[in-house]
């Protein structure tokens, strides 16, 4: 069992808040991803869990036992570094055996465990090599093996795929996820790459500027972002967000007369949340807009990105807003062409410009 709980964990460096008080419960066997841009506090949080960084306040519990002030080696946690941190003067076998030797295990046990682990990661052919001679991907596998051999309660990984080539990253992603499924071990994984997070995480914790923005499954975080930051950060490109005003059941967008009719079941929750104000932010993902000759909304083509399997159109709706619309690869558009499009009303989201939070309606349970 390996349940990690963070209770109001915070970290200050002098006057600078690297992590503001954070509450998080990580379930046993979960693959949780700490996601966010550089400087958001995700790596600091990971380091606090491991003990490589002290907490300025709060507690960290592992299986309901307080580990906040235990030495890193006493926490039964393995750490995988971004730059591998393999011992260059030892062979791969010695590198992997090292943690067990540090614990004083018997020779037989060490050999047995190393044996098991190299098969899982398919590096048996590298056992006698020096880390310096290996490719990045192989080095990372050795680092994972070294973490795995201890059979710890939890794995902490700090952007382990960051130093690899793009093509390697994809295959290693699948390998790590497969490893996690085989081992059933709780894993906390830090990354700034939201594609990685969406692909690997059971739950994603989005952080920005030392604050937790949203913690939820990939679907939740993608389809129901809790605030503007999450809406913009998740997805490539992020959600289209337009400032508009609500008037007579429609959202009026600046510039060319673009009005979007709000579905009825949204009207009450919107008015309630906006509390008299008429400013509203409307959001929709590129795949939720469809070009149509009878579309409600109007714009001009600003740029066309060919992605092979699909085309991403940049549509200029007015001086301020350029939205991305995902279109079929077969369709061709000229720059400057006027287009009309519709939005899928089930997928449109609304945000309060003052609080930057999403406005929810009561879901109809079916």
């Amino acid at each position, binding site marked *: 069992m390996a349940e990690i709980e963070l209770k109001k964990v915070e970290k*200050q*460096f*002098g006057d600078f808040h690297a992590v503001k008080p954070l509450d998080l419960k990580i379930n046993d066997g979960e693959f949780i991803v700490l996601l966010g841009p550089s400087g958001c506090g995700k790596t600091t949080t990971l380091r606090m869990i491991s*003990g*490589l*960084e*002290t*907490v*300025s*306040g709060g507690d960290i519990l592992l299986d309901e036992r*307080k580990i*906040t*002030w*235990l*030495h*890193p080696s006493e926490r039964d946690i393995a750490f995988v570094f971004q730059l591998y941190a393999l011992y260059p003067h030892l062979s791969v076998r010695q590198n992997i055996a090292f943690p067990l030797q540090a614990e004083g295990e018997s020779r037989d046990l060490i050999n047995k465990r190393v044996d098991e682990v190299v098969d899982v990661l398919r590096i048996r052919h590298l056992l006698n090599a020096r880390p310096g001679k290996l490719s990045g991907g192989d080095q990372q596998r050795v680092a994972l093996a070294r973490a795995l051999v201890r059979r710890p309660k939890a794995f902490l990984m700090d952007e382990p795929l960051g130093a690899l080539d793009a093509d390697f990253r994809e295959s290693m992603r699948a390998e790590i996820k497969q490893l996690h499924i085989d081992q059933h071990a709780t894993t906390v994984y830090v990354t700034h790459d939201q594609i990685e997070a969406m692909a690997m995480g059971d739950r994603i914790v989005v952080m920005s500027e030392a604050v937790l923005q949203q913690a939820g499954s990939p679907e939740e975080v993608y389809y129901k972002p809790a605030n503007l930051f999450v809406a913009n950060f998740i997805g490539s490109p992020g959600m289209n967000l337009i400032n508009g005003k609500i008037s007579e059941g429609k959202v009026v967008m600046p510039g060319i007369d673009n009005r979007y009719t709000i579905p009825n079941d949204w009207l009450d929750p919107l008015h309630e949340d906006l509390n008299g104000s008429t400013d509203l932010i409307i959001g929709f993902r590129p795949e939720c807009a469809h070009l149509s000759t009878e579309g409600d909304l109007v714009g001009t083509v600003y740029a066309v990105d060919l992605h092979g399997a699909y085309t991403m159109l940049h549509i200029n709706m007015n001086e301020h807003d350029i939205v991305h619309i995902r279109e079929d690869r077969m369709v061709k558009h000229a720059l400057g062409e006027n287009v009309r499009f519709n939005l899928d009303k089930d997928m449109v989201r609304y945000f309060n410009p003052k609080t930057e939070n999403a406005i929810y309606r009561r879901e109809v349970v079916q």
Partner: protein
Amino acid sequence: MSNFREDGPGYPVTEATRVDKVSPESRILGKMRALIVAIIAIVMLIPVFVMIMTSFKARSDIVSVPPTVVFKPSLEGFVFLFTERAVVAKARQADFKAAAETGELNIIERVAFEAGQEVTGPSDYVTRLKNSLIIAGLSTIFSVSLGLFAAYAFSRFDVLGKDDLLFFILSTRMLPAVVVTIPLFLMFRQLNLNDTHIGMVLLYTVFNLSLATWLLKGFIDEIPIEYEEAALVDGYSRWQTFHKIVLPQAVTGIAATTVFCLIFAWNEYAFALMLTSENARTAPPSIATMLGRGGIEWSAIAAGSLGFLIPVVIVVFALRNYLLRGVTFGAVRK
């Protein structure tokens, strides 16, 4: 005493440290380490303190057993160092005594008289110090400058036989200086360089050049070549790149190399003793020769050593901020 593993240090930790470094045990260990280092530093500096004290002691205090720590300071050492004296003849002693009482003698003459001597003129100590300053200073400047160019060339250019040349340069350091003194003496005499400032400067420059080249090459190797490539693409010539880009970055290395070359040239004894006599003699041999002159004048030797110490201390003190990084000799790479 609160339990650290349960409750932590009891205050919010706002530095970047590991968990085990804020435990009470760790802090006590840290304080103990600082104390031990302070003790070692004091022990290492004791000879210097003794030397300073000795230079201010009167003769009787110096040889007393056990050694005195509290004593009446006397300028005897300095006076003996800076002046040539002769023993006052019995006949004139009375005159001197009278002059001392009426206050006609200045302080230097009075101190000399207390030891039964009169001043006959200045000693050559100041001249020797001056020679040391000139010879060591000039040779350091030359060896560091030339070494800098050589080091840059070895580091950046494809010199023919580079490894062999570098080893050859290094091998000159493997030689004890004394071994080549006799051939050098003969060479100098042939070239009329014996006992000249130029001869000594040339000699020290050549001997320091190997050290300077090796040290500076290490430092220049550490400067990423991308800076120079960017400058060359922007249109700077090689010389401009060297002088605007490489030099500012090599400053710490140059400081460290200067100190090492200076210390070597300053303390050099063998060549100074055997290749100079009157004109260009530097301080080290002359301080030692004071030992032989009619009894061991410890206070004068101490004072002389103190005077000899001070210029180097001043130079190293001025360069101290550069040195701390330079001590690693460019061996630490990221």
